[in-house]
């Protein structure tokens, strides 16, 4: 029951928002998001006490087709639910900083999106998973499209078509798998789309070979893995900051999570056939994103390419099919979510103060903004993977996994750390330090409200960096069972 409440609470709040005005809108949106985080935190304790069976819910959804409303939580999904519920209140707080047109609709879409995202993480039926996968897309399309920058129309259209086409391939793969299954227990329908039924399928190597690409198409676009990334930098740049945070902080994780739960264990032979190619593509993405990031002069665009580079490492780590590679991906999903939201928040804070994101226009800002500079630096160093930060633990484990897979791949993927130090520190130097710009004397430091966003993010950065085991022990059983299924 808790899982269902967790899933639909944001949606209910989104509907209620329609009837509110002014301050009540903000209070309701934030209150619902905080309550949701409280519930998720409670779920984390309940999970420690009762295990994952406690969260299992299975109702007939479309009985004639054998499709069930089957949701549940294990350690892996729990961590992503925690990440989502942790970030959404902060994203809403970030949204409060700007006066968006029709704010009730804006916050409602954010909360609606939260239901879609949570649904992806808790679904245990393939069609329910696909359902939420697409549901999450609708609000983000409108958020990016209606409140975005000048070139939003063409860019969001590209984003929408790209992701839906990818998802349709996945749906086609699921339909094929569904037709291979037998009836579920106590069901009249001929087939079942339950995750367990998919795990139990005996598929030939040639079937798995093409099924791999059908299903991976959706995940590769979402992450995105090179060369399916072309929608990403434009969409991140043109979207309003909260939408960019949702896209990069949480939505990207849908792809990584989907790969771990809905791809590797279902088509293990396909994975071993194509894994090498995916790792090569992912490593190309790492280098490609980093090289382009070095050349960027738009703050948001630079962070977008940096995110592309880092997600490549996550992809490579997952496909290394090693325990530490997958565990690294889990930790890095959390760390990257925190880092990238923090980075985009700082970029937005600077843009709100100066009216520009153009790096050459900025400079010499630290004197009047000591707190902002420190916060910026912490987020940045975690992205660079400095020890003590969450980014370090994630990338270290990921690189360990890739290194186990192939030493050369590990060595090349390791360049990501060097590259990100180059472009991020250069950016910091040019934006915050360096010769004075027109804003050096006028810029103001972070307000208390902004610290309220960055404070929790920074706390989590250090928590992840100092005590990663809090999180690793949650995901360990899930990762072990995924690898057991892959190795069968």
């Amino acid at each position, binding site marked *: 029951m808790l899982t269902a409440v967790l899933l639909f609470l944001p949606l209910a709040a989104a509907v209620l928002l329609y009837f509110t005005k002014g301050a009540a809108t903000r209070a309701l949106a934030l209150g619902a998001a905080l309550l949701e985080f409280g519930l998720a935190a409670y779920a984390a304790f309940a999970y420690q006490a009762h295990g994952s069976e406690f969260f299992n819910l299975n109702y007939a959804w*479309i009985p004639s*087709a054998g499709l069930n409303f089957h949701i549940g939580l294990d350690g892996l999904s729990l961590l992503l639910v925690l990440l989502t519920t942790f970030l959404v209140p902060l994203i809403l707080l970030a949204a409060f900083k700007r006066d968006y047109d029709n704010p009730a609709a804006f916050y409602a879409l954010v909360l609606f999106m939260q239901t879609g995202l949570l649904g992806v993480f808790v679904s245990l039926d393939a069609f329910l998973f*696909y359902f939420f996968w697409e549901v999450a897309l609708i609000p983000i399309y409108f958020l990016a499209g209606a409140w975005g920058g000048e070139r939003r*129309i063409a860019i969001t259209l590209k984003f929408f*078509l790209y992701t*839906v*086409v990818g998802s*349709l391939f996945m*749906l086609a793969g699921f339909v*094929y798998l569904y037709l291979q299954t037998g009836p579920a227990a106590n069901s009249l329908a001929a087939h079942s789309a339950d995750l367990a039924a998919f795990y139990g399928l005996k598929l030939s190597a040639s079937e798995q070979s093409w099924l791999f690409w059908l299903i991976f198409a959706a995940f590769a676009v979402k992450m995105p893995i090179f060369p399916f990334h072309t929608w990403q930098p434009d969409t991140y740049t043109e979207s309003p900051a909260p939408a960019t945070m949702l896209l990069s902080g949480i939505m990207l994780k849908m792809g990584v999570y989907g790969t771990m739960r809905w791809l590797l264990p279902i088509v293990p032979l396909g994975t071993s056939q194509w894994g090498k190619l995916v790792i090569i593509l992912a490593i190309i993405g790492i280098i490609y994103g980093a090289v382009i990031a070095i050349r960027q002069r738009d703050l948001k665009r630079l962070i977008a390419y940096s995110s592309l580079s880092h997600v490549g490492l996550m992809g490579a780590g997952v496909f290394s099919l090693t325990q530490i590679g997958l565990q690294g991906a889990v930790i890095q999903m959390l760390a990257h979510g925190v880092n990238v939201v923090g980075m985009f928040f700082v970029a937005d804070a600077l843009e709100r103060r100066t009216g520009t994101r153009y790096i050459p226009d900025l400079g010499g800002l630290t004197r009047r903004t000591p707190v902002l500079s420190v916060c910026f630096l912490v987020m940045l160093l975690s992205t660079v993977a400095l020890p003590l930060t969450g980014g370090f633990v994630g990338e270290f484990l990921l690189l360990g996994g890739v290194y186990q897979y192939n030493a050369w791949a590990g060595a090349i993927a390791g360049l990501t750390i060097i590259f990100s130090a180059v472009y991020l520190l250069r950016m910091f130097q040019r934006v915050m330090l360096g010769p004075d710009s027109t804003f050096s004397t006028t810029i103001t430091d972070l307000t208390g409200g902004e610290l309220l966003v960055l404070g929790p993010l920074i706390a989590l950065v250090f928590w992840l960096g100092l005590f990663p085991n809090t999180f690793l022990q949650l995901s360990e059983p899930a990762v072990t069972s995924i690898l057991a299924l892959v190795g069968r």
Partner: protein
Amino acid sequence: MISIILLSVFGILNLFLGFLRSNKVLLPGAMLLLLAVLGANLADWSVLPAPQSYFNNMLVVDNYTVAFTGIVLLTTIVLLPFSRSYVLAGEANLAEYYALLLFSLVGAIMMVGYDHLLMLFVGIEILSVCMYVLAGSRKRDSRSNEAALKYFLMGAFATGILLFGIALLYGATGTFVLSQLAAAIAAPANVSLAPMLYIGILLMIIGIGFKVSAAPFHFWTPDVYEGTPTFFTAFMSTVVKTAGFAAFLKLLAVALPTAQGFWLPTIQAMCALTLLLGNVGAAAQTSAKRMLAYSSVSHAGYLLIGLVASQGRLTGPAANGIFFYSLAYSIATIAAFGVLKLVAEHRQRDDYAGLNGLGKTNPLLAFTMTVAMLSLAGIPLTGGFFGKFFLLAAAAEQHNIGLVVFAVVMSMVGLYYYLRPLIAMYLRPAEEDATLVPVDGIQTATLALLALLTLVLGIAPGFLSGLL
């Protein structure tokens, strides 16, 4: 059966009510009458011990008939509130239009419930003749006249071809009765008559294909839909199509299962061609109304997939898929045409730019249109997704993989043109002089209901997905 009688009586009654010339009486009156008919129709659901036959087995009332009659009636009920502008425009013959709508429903129900080929013919004729008149109901508008003439000439041809097909089929088998046709076709004595039989089947497919605007017999659709007053275009693209597909499925599944080897490739080819021409055609349009016309062609293509997977049965996944798809499609189409009609009449244009900024001026209209477009595009959360899913899964189970893949690719094309109204409504600013589009209470309620129904079909399709 009771619905046919009630509709005929009410139709005549409506003609007499014409002297009132007041939509305040006629509209609620007609809606209440239709609700009563819908209730009477649904009361026949599964309560009958066996399918009831009438007129020497010419007409049969079973769950299949009740289900599709239900769609047709429901569609008409939710369409009626959008007739308002006819009163404002001073159209004197409102009562006649309502009467013609009711009479055409009689034809639609006969097409759904026929068990005899002549009944099919009579049903199609009743429906079509009414539609010819309604297409030209805006007498002083030359485009409406053009639409009526085109529709009539083409329609008359198609009906002739259909009748010719029925005659040949009768010549080859010696029977008009659906249930006897299957055995007669398979009978060894008739094998020498195969050419006649096949030509007959082909001509019938052409005739019905024309009525449901399946390619390559769809060429009339865009022009007729565009010229016809939007209110009746909505009726044509929902009721006529639903009844046409119910008739089509019945013909193929009950009368011609033994000739499947002949018609299956034909339908498959028609299906692929319809999907291609409908979707590519729609993508090229700048007028929202014309886009919807081509989109209705493309939806005929998806429904044809259901025929391909029908396996000679009026029950099972394919029949259920056609039922669910028709329902979801009809609701979404009425919503789309309803919004478009209100906006186009107020802003005097029916291209995409006419919808600019609607999200600001009329949030409800824009929301309903959004839900309708997402449903037509087949995005989850809406009924259209499950319609497509049921049909495609049924076809995939029959190993029509090529056709299913093609349909999925075509629905990707569909995404492009269904997003364009959304972009106009939410992402583009309104024109300088854009004002609130006037919507009356009952229209507001209907649009909200249509959006809600689409979402319910998209979230909890379970209660309707296994009816047949």
